[in-house]
């Protein structure tokens, strides 16, 4: 029969209203259109006008509605009534909750402010939380960078004044060869996918360097399945090949880097390896025009890469010469390096040649005149269209800082940083380490800290040590164990506080970090530390305050829970003072605003801090008469001024002649203006200032106008890192600040001012033959840390996480589908489901990160596969390295930054009888929010 086609409504009403805000399903901060029906969230899509995502949205973002309605949302402040860890709470009022917090925080502020340890997790308001902690006066504040990617951030900032992701990105429109190293797939989420899509459209090539071939590596034209922890050596072999062939950008190196800077070469000198400077402290180069020394930035100077000079009986040669002496050595040849990194030497050579070909035979010229910081006018911008991106895969190793430096040195040698087709900074970067604050530590009872907590040390004098050499910070950041720990060491806070090393604390205050589960190494022991009592029966860590929007595993360990809102119910500020949403072409900042009001008794954490600040009478949070300065976080965002004219948001400020961007007085209508503009503000960089930003005076002037700098701050890239050399020199016995004896040798080896590779530190502590397999985690594109599990849609995509086993080991162990394996490290063992994967490094196993959940958490049923079949590798990783008989325990971290060395993990595998559930098993925790409904038929419109 022929059926009459039914009439359908082809133009249904989409929504009553679209509210534009910023996503928070991961850390990428895309713009979203939230479609509202009957006052409820009906549909979420990407905002086409937004600088980050330009309309697209990832799987997490599009599933935001299921995060917003998740049954795991906390409902009211909770006070612990059962033992810690039991999950037994009573709901209390906000007044009671805040007074309880004040009753713990006020006395210690008045007597010993360091007894508060305040650490935040995946928070995006560090400029604000840091301001609060500084006003409170504790030196013990940081966010989660120490266990995330501080190596990447610090390696980049010390080398070139910025790193990847929010610091900068490849020139997606022009690059012709793109290499991506060790990138967890969840961020920089949409921009990388968009960028790879554009490269593919243009026929540009993508090379993926990763032991695991999924995601971006799956679509890469070439896959380099490198041995974990050896990326640095591989990169330095590329450097060897390129230098030996002269395929480096000499003009760029001479003008814009410290390659021509002169170094003291006298091993007997107390300044051996330091930079020759003039009276003004300016690094000296030999001027090719005169053959004489000159300041690097003198007008018209032509720095000589091969210069040398004897001064006061001391020879000085250039950084370039030192680099030639180091990297031309056969130890870096592909033939020597290949077997160590698991690659055919011909493969390394091929890649180096391909990089050389693209960088120099396919160079780009843009007809855009510009003027550099020496006053020289250039008619063109020359580009080397090779670009790089890297993230945790290289940074979460104990050699990650030096590996990140090696990668930056490679791209600088090519002349591909801040040039067309290469890597481009995003404002407020470029900003060198020397332009960042130094760290501050001085706590005084009842007073603010003497300056910002976190910064970039320039030498041993900047360490956070007491007069007798003890760590000032609870996490032992900025000590000889990890001198450049620019993001702190959140992963050491609980174990140090528990051990009373360097001292005991009173209150542990955590925000949005699942430290009792997937965010800690050695998870089972951490849970024990949180519940341990002293000889009096009191908890070793006396008070724990935790703020989270959801019923995570960590909630159960808090004495006081401050329930946060979902991302659609809150004000937030993605600020140029912090981690903004800029792109290489423009500075940009953004807000979140409550597109719906909470239907629970919850408050945005930042508003709670504003309130606590006022109750504690913290400077900056109270008026002269002691009354609260700000009603809430929104009020702070609009009215706080970090310096006169500079506030959290740069758009729609009040200038002398009306509205202005950047510098200006507060404007009460600022947030409304952001809302009208789609939740963000963009400040375009002029054409002349688009590239060469560190040296381009048009950029420098623009950045001063916008308030990013107080004065033009041009600088040269540091192939050779003098701050590192200062620490190394101290270890060699020079200077007033001396390291403890047991750290001397390690400092000499690791604080190398030129990028160096050494094997992951744990390889030295355990029998690598007994643990022959590398074990890694990746975050999937469709989940963000632990959050995705509570999302009804996303957990259907990633509800299980087998251990993926490469063919070599799959066959060797005689495994078959459905088998389980026992995975043993030098610290512990787990028994988990296995799955075969061929597209893997021969000796690497891996699984998705943070899919495994504890029973009772996240409002899931107790038989949820995440709890019965899902697992964490965290149980295999200790925060300390195995003992080596020297009576000391060494941190499982990068020795330079303290970055948690998650990916140094080695294991052995055995086929196991399938247990009923993954091993180890943990007791269920009582859910403070019950469990979710048995069925969802979600539709808000009629």
């Amino acid at each position, binding site marked *: 029969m022929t*059926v009459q086609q039914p009439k359908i409504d082809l133009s249904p009403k989409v929504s009553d209203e679209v509210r534009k805000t910023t996503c928070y399903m991961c850390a990428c901060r895309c713009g979203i259109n939230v479609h509202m029906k009957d006052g409820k969230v009906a*549909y979420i899509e990407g905002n086409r006008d937004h600088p980050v995502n330009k309309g*697209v*949205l990832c799987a997490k973002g599009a599933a935001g509605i299921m995060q917003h309605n998740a049954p795991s949302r906390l409902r009211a402040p909770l006070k612990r009534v059962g033992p810690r860890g039991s999950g037994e709470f009573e709901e209390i009022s906000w007044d009671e909750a805040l007074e309880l917090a004040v009753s713990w925080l006020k006395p210690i502020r008045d007597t010993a402010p360091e007894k508060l340890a305040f650490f935040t997790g995946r928070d995006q308001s560090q400029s604000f939380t840091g301001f609060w902690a500084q006003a409170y006066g504790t030196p013990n504040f940081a966010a989660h960078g120490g266990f995330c990617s501080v190596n990447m951030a610090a390696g980049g900032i010390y080398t070139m004044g910025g790193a990847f992701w929010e610091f900068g990105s490849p020139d997606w429109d022009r690059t012709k060869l793109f290499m991506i190293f060790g990138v967890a797939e969840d961020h920089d989420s949409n921009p990388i996918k968009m960028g*790879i899509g554009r490269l593919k459209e243009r026929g540009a090539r993508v090379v993926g360097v990763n032991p695991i071939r999924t995601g971006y590596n799956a679509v890469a034209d070439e896959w380099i399945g490198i041995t974990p922890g050896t990326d640095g050596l591989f990169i330095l072999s590329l450097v060897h090949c390129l230098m030996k062939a002269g395929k480096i950008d000499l003009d760029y190196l001479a003008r814009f880097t410290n390659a021509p800077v002169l170094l003291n070469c006298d091993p007997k000198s107390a300044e051996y390896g330091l930079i020759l400077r003039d009276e003004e402290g300016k690094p000296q180069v030999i001027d090719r025009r005169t053959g004489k020394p000159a300041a690097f930035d003198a007008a018209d100077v032509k720095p000589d890469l091969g210069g040398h000079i004897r001064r006061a009986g001391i020879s000085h040669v250039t950084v370039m010469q030192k680099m030639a002496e180091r990297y031309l050595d056969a130890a870096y040849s592909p033939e020597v390096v290949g077997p160590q990194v698991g690659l055919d030497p011909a493969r390394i050579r091929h890649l180096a040649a391909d990089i050389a070909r693209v960088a120099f035979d396919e160079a780009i010229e843009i007809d855009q005149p510009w003027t550099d910081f020496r006053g020289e006018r250039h008619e063109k911008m020359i580009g080397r269209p090779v670009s790089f991106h890297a993230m945790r895969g290289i940074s979460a190793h104990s050699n990650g800082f030096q590996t990140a430096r090696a990668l930056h040195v490679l791209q600088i040698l090519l002349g591909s940083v801040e040039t067309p087709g290469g890597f481009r900074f995003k404002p407020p970067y470029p900003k060198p380490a020397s332009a960042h604050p130094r760290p501050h530590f001085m706590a005084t009872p009842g007073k603010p800290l003497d300056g910002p907590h976190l910064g970039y040390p320039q030498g041993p004098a900047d360490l956070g040590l007491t007069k007798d050499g003890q760590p000032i910070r609870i996490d032992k950041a900025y000590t000889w164990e990890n001198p450049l720990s620019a993001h702190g060491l959140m992963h050491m806070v609980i174990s140090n506080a528990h051990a009373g090393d360097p001292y005991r604390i009173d209150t542990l205050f955590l925000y949005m970090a699942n430290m009792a589960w997937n965010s800690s190494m050695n998870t089972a022991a951490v849970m024990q530390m949180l519940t341990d009592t002293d000889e009096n029966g009191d908890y070793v860590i006396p008070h724990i305050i935790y703020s989270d929007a959801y019923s995570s595993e960590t909630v159960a360990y808090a004495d006081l829970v401050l329930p946060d809102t979902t991302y659609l119910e809150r004000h937030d500020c993605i600020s140029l003072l912090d981690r903004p949403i800029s792109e290489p072409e423009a500075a940009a900042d953004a807000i979140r605003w409550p597109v719906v009001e909470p239907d629970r008794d919850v408050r945005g954490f930042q508003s709670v801090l504003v309130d606590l600040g006022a109750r504690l009478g913290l400077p900056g949070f109270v008026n002269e008469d002691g009354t609260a300065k700000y009603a809430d976080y929104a009020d702070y965002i609009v009215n706080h001024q970090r310096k006169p004219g500079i506030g959290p948001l740069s758009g729609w400020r009040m200038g002398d002649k009306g509205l202005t961007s950047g510098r200006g007085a507060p404007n009460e209508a600022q947030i409304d203006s952001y809302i009208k503009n789609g939740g963000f503000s963009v400040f375009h960089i002029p054409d002349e200032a688009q590239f060469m930003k560190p040296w381009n005076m048009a950029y420098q002037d623009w950045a001063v106008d916008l308030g990013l700098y107080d004065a033009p701050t041009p600088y040269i890239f540091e192939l050779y890192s003098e701050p590192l050399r200062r620490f190394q020199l101290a270890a060699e016995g020079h200077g007033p600040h001396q390291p403890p004896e047991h750290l001397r040798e390690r400092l000499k080896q690791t604080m190398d001012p030129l990028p160096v590779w050494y094997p992951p530190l744990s390889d030295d502590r355990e029998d690598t033959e007994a643990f022959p397999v590398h074990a890694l985690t990746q975050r999937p594109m469709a989940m963000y840390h632990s959050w995705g599990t509570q999302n009804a849609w996303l957990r*259907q995509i990633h509800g299980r996480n087998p251990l993926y086993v490469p063919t070599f080991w799959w066959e060797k162990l005689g495994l078959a589908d459905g088998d389980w394996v026992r995975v043993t490290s030098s610290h512990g063992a787990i028994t988990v489901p296995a799955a075969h994967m061929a597209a893997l490094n021969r000796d690497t196993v891996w699984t998705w990160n943070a899919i495994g959940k504890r029973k009772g958490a996240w409002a899931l049923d107790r038989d949820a596969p995440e709890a019965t079949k899902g697992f964490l590798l965290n149980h295999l990783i200790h925060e300390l390295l195995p003992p080596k008989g020297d009576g000391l325990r060494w941190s499982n971290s990068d020795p330079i930054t303290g970055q948690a060395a998650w990916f140094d993990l080695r294991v052995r595998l055995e086929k196991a009888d399938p247990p009923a559930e993954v091993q180890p098993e943990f007791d269920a925790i009582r859910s403070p929010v019950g469990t*979710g409904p048995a*069925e969802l038929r979600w539709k808000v419109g009629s």
Partner: protein
Amino acid sequence: MTQLPASTDRQLGLVIDLDTCVGCHACVTSCKGWNTENYGAPLSDQEPYGGDPSGTFLNRIHSYEVQPETGPAQLIHFPKSCLHCEDAPCVPVCPTGASYKRSEDGIVLVNESDCIGCGLCAWACPYGARELDQAEGVMKKCTLCVDRIYNENLPEEDRVPACVRTCPAGARHFGDLSDPESAVSQLVAERGGMDLMPEQGARPANKYLPPRPKDSWEGETDVLAPFLTPVAEEPKGFLGWLDRALEKI
């Protein structure tokens, strides 16, 4: 039995680029979001927070490992939804006429008010592209966002399926595959777009662009070798080269 139209004015469909799809599942959840709120019954979920969660999805991503004759194994991400076949086997089997193919644009739809949830169409579909919603008891399938693509309440640039609008990598394309001049037809011609399982004879409208060849470096080594011709073997020679080279700049 329901007849397929003798011909359709246009044949709308998707072109999916397997060379570019990174397997991120953005299309999966944007589809779920739009189609839960729009056309027909919401896409329900059973045990959404329980031990065996399952729900209705109109678009899913599968990942397959491929071992080429030479070179390392590859991973192909393969998004799959209804392919809006020209000879859609799901339509003639429908006992109530609920399953039909639109004569104006070739979209295959289910009229939910006539659907009795018998499942014959899902059985007939060679691609497994239909899912019976367990809460509503009706057959759900990709509508090609028929309530978006003509929707005058949306800006014109948004009148594309939700999955196409959201795809971050730009791996999904939408258009009229019966028009050889359309952008999607051109793309199919340029890139050798393929039918999925053509032997089934369903003549799917959706096309897949195959992955480009990968890991072909071994053939290029000789061509590239001159780029690494040494300028020096030792630091001293390197400095001499440096000096000569700087003279030329």
